[in-house]
């Protein structure tokens, strides 16, 4: 199963870093959507099928904490896999996010920490999947 991913961060450079990490991770990723704040992200969630959201906390207009609450309140998205990618270091706030079913990756992150958290949360594999050419090259199975 290839994942449709939503990346939410008010920094376009940070979004680009996360997108690049996803593309290089070996994870089965299909569409990647981007949003600059929580409100924009909720609008994208209404219009698109998304399997996983990577969400910053400190954002203008609507922060990641409120966005996560709205996601959990909506029956359409209440079981969405969410990874918070943030500089947040308060154990109190991190625990509050975990109690809402979110995983947490601290900035600055390593590509491995993002990949391993996604694998653990979604159950997808980062093992390479055989593509058409690999199947063709393997020849007939008889």
């Amino acid at each position, binding site marked *: 199963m290839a994942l449709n991913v939503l990346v939410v961060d008010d920094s*376009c450079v940070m979004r680009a870093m996360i997108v690049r990490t996803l593309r290089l991770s070996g994870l089965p990723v299909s569409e990647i959507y981007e949003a600059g704040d929580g409100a924009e992200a909720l609008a994208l969630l209404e219009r698109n099928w998304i399997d996983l959201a990577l969400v910053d906390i400190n954002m203008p207009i609507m922060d990641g904490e409120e966005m996560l609450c709205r996601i959990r309140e909506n029956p359409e998205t209440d079981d969405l896999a969410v990874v918070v990618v943030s500089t947040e270091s308060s154990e109190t706030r991190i625990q509050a996010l975990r109690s809402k079913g979110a995983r947490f990756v601290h900035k600055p992150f390593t590509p491995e920490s993002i990949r391993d958290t996604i694998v653990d949360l979604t159950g997808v594999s980062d093992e390479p999947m055989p593509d058409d050419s690999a199947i063709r090259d393997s020849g007939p199975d008889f």
Partner: protein
Amino acid sequence: MNPCLTTALYETAALTFEQLGMMLPVPMDDGAPPGPPEASAQVAFRGTIEGHLVITAHEGVLAELSANMLGEDGPVPPERQLDALGEAANVACGNLLPRIVGRQAVMRISAPQVARPAEGLPKPGEPVAETHLGLEAGAVSLALFVADLTPLQEAEP
């Protein structure tokens, strides 16, 4: 200047530019001026203490920082260079605060404000800590402004 805060500021800045910007910072303790400023990013915080963290990039740092963060060989557009500096300030502030106020305290950090020297940012008083990091392309200066250090002094054993 507070020496403990200055040490925490330097170490957090070094970690940020190493891990986020893939740069090799070195201390600038020879008193040499860091060169002309390119831009500054300011992040406000509130909670146990209130204040600002300001990062100023000097000389060619913006281009190197943004290119490293984006993994690009070519030039990065100016607005993305400023965004990269803002994110560096955000990450530095988020990692500095728990070293100062502890990991149980809940602190709110605002979105970064970024400006070129000509535009300027309001100077929030006198810094309680200041440090400079030398980088291959130039240097960065960090200044920590805290409105009232009393909550930290009261928390000390």
